[in-house]
């Protein structure tokens, strides 16, 4: 301690601050470094591209979550969160697959119905959160369970295989050598970035989430903004569904589970990338890519699949705990 304080009394608190703020990123950095040393395949183009492809659905649902978190505030309990997005994505995936494979529908009709279904889930969330006044973590968790149940009944818990040419195109096409799902992710990122960071709507949404009274006294009525955020999350879920259907050539049971953990992890890891330490669209995308890289890398070094989920759970706890500690220091 005395040796340290000779180096500079401000060094220790400064180091602690950096560790708290950037700790989750440092952790990821160390892990990725280890993975690239431990597996020669990790840094191969093939693995990087496949990781990006896997990141696509995670990033897209996480964009939806980012919108809800912005509008509800980033307090994990009282703030805004939407855990039902992965279930909506699973629902939309099932609807697209069923329409294309069993109902003989065209792609456009399948997409419209899938979006409607996901937005309907969002609308129910709006009812629960803004009209009835439940906390969003509680109501969307219940909605997650409900919608997952609906999907199981709807699909009889079976796989639906899709061989629609448009979906196969999304799966196989590689413009400029980059897989189509990655392009979809980039396009969604630009759209959500404009919406959240460059539109008056996004700015007002942030005001609503940051301080509802401030927003109200500035002439912004909070409720419509919060309502819109849940509906937009539904649109994000439907968009992710397109990538999911293409990647899996249809819908299969259980895709929602991993997506839930990955989405939450990507979103909150992402906030460590931002100057303001809040959830941002670029941060979320980087977060999703990190999560996908990590999952892939762990598989490459033959870590058992069952371990990977537990590992991610611990990571979420570390990230959220670091954020909480930081908030406590600021208070």
């Amino acid at each position, binding site marked *: 301690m005395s040796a340290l304080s000779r180096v500079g009394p401000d060094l220790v608190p400064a180091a602690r601050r950096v560790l708290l703020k950037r700790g989750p990123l440092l952790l990821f950095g160390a892990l990725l470094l280890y993975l690239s040393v431990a597996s020669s395949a990790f840094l191969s183009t093939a693995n990087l591209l496949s990781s990006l492809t896997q990141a696509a659905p995670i990033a897209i649902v996480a964009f939806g979550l980012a919108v809800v978190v912005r509008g509800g505030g980033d307090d994990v309990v009282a703030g805004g969160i939407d855990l039902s997005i992965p279930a909506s994505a699973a629902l939309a995936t099932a609807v697209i697959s069923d329409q294309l494979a069993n109902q003989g529908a065209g792609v456009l009709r399948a997409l419209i119905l899938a979006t409607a279904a996901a937005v309907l889930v969002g609308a129910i969330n709006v009812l629960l959160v803004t009209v009835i006044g439940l906390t969003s973590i509680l109501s969307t968790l219940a909605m997650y369970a409900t919608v997952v149940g609906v999907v199981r009944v709807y699909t009889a818990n079976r796989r639906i295989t899709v061989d629609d040419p448009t979906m196969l195109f999304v799966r196989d096409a590689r413009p400029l050598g980059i897989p189509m799902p990655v392009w979809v992710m980039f396009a969604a990122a630009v759209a959500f970035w404009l919406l959240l960071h460059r539109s008056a709507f996004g700015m007002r949404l942030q005001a609503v989430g940051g301080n509802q009274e401030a927003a109200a006294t500035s002439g912004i009525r909070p409720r419509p903004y919060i309502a819109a955020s849940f509906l937009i999350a539904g649109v994000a879920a439907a968009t992710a569904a397109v990538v999911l259907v293409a990647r899996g050539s249809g819908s299969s049971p259980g895709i929602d589970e991993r997506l839930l953990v990955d989405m939450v992890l990507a979103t909150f890891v992402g906030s460590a990338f931002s*100057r303001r330490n809040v959830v941002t669209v670029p941060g979320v995308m980087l977060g999703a890519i990190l999560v996908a890289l990590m999952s892939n890398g762990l598989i490459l070094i033959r870590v058992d699949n069952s371990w990977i989920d537990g590992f991610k759970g611990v990571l979420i706890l570390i990230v959220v705990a670091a954020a909480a500690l930081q908030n406590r220091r600021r208070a």
Partner: protein
Amino acid sequence: MAQPSSGREPVLEMTNISKAFPGVQALDDAGLSIRQGEVHGLVGENGAGKSTIIKILAGVYHRDAGRIVVDGSALDEVTSRAVHEHGVRFVHQELHLVPHMTVAESVFMGHELSRAGLIRRREMRRRAETFLSERLGADLDGETLIRDLGSAERKLIQIARALVDEGARLVVFDEPTAPLAAGEIERVFSAVDRLREHGVASLYVSHYLAEITRLCDRVTVFRNGTDVGSLADLDEQDHREMIRLMVGRELGQLFPDRRPERGEVVLATSGLGDGATFSDVDLEVRRGEIVGVAGLLGSGREELIDSLAGLRRSRSGHVELGGQRARVRSPADALDRGMALVPRDRRNDGLVLAMSATDNINLATLPDVARHGWILRDAADQRARRMVERLDIRPQAVERPAQLFSGGNQQKLVLARWLVAAADVLLFDEPTVGVDIGAKAEIYELMTEMADRGAGLLVASNDAAELLGVCDRVVVLVRGRIVATVRRDEVGIDELIALVTGSEEAPADGGTGAGGSPATDVEEEAR
């Protein structure tokens, strides 16, 4: 209708305004008239109807009766949109800002500049910076985050938000200096002065009469839901008249006389520091003594009190309670050793709002009214009733939840808790912030009574008049260090403020503080 005959045409005319809430006539035939370009003060005790009439103007409440004319047009239905269109803007008491938003974003909150749906960030930044520097005298970077600003700067951002569209004809300031320290207030004042230069009228609501006389051209006094008088050409001599109108009688003295009997040392610190906000603090509080701690926001004043109370860890030095070294780790720990904190934000930190007055009063001393862990309701009620009577808490209904008492009475409920606790050392943080003059006098009386019964009091406050009025000695903190200790009869308010703001060198140590001069009278109700 109203013809603009001269520049003295009222920008706002509210007449015969009445408003009743269940059980209370909040406003009864009240009136308020503000001329173009003037700064108009509005004063009155808590509950006099100031906030009600402002909320009616803001469209939050709807009047039962009366007439409202804004800028020549009579408004039948007052909505926030309608008054905004007529150029009325509000600067609310609370800091309505988002910590992680930038200065530019905050200034333009609600009226963002956009083109084709997209925000014009650079334009917003430029306009915000220009407006802040030219109109409010604040040179800030538009990209700075709100959380990196001081509270005066945050207030200026709020003012800028109200004014930046240049459509303001009348700005309503509700207690704008409440969260600010003495040195920071001048920046808000000069912002109001600049408004007047630009012909924008202000309605300025404040508890601080000195601010009213410093800033306002005229003042309207409210009492019991109606306007009881107006004064113009204000100066310090008008304080007494304002107070007379506010309370409806001559108020004898704000601060009680006292001749302290000092006993042994009950609280002592030596070399106390928290490694960041204060250091090397040596203090001594004796039985029967009231010691003040003066300091600006950020001087370490709040942190010192918090760390004594166990809410914050100290890193160096030590504390002695009753002559014995004590490590206080939490307020409960402190209470076990006979030291209690009456916190700054009583409504939030001091009371459990949903619990009854009885429960709140007995909260810290439940074992006294319990047997084998079971609370004896009768004993608890009796004790609460005694305190309610003694402190004149109204209404005298001990089973009523704390949230249904008015601000001043809530304050007294917290005080009652520590009176029954019979603590040896009492720490007060801002004991009268946001309290009207009548309740202030009562709180000072109680503090004095506690000291007379043998407790030692340490009082941290932002209000120099209060410290000199009620304390025997005042230690002055500047940037975390004690720079002076003064006796109440040694210095005036101006000198204390000069010491606190660091604009004057410390005099020789005042040392012992036997027998302060009595009778600091209401006329010194000033900062």
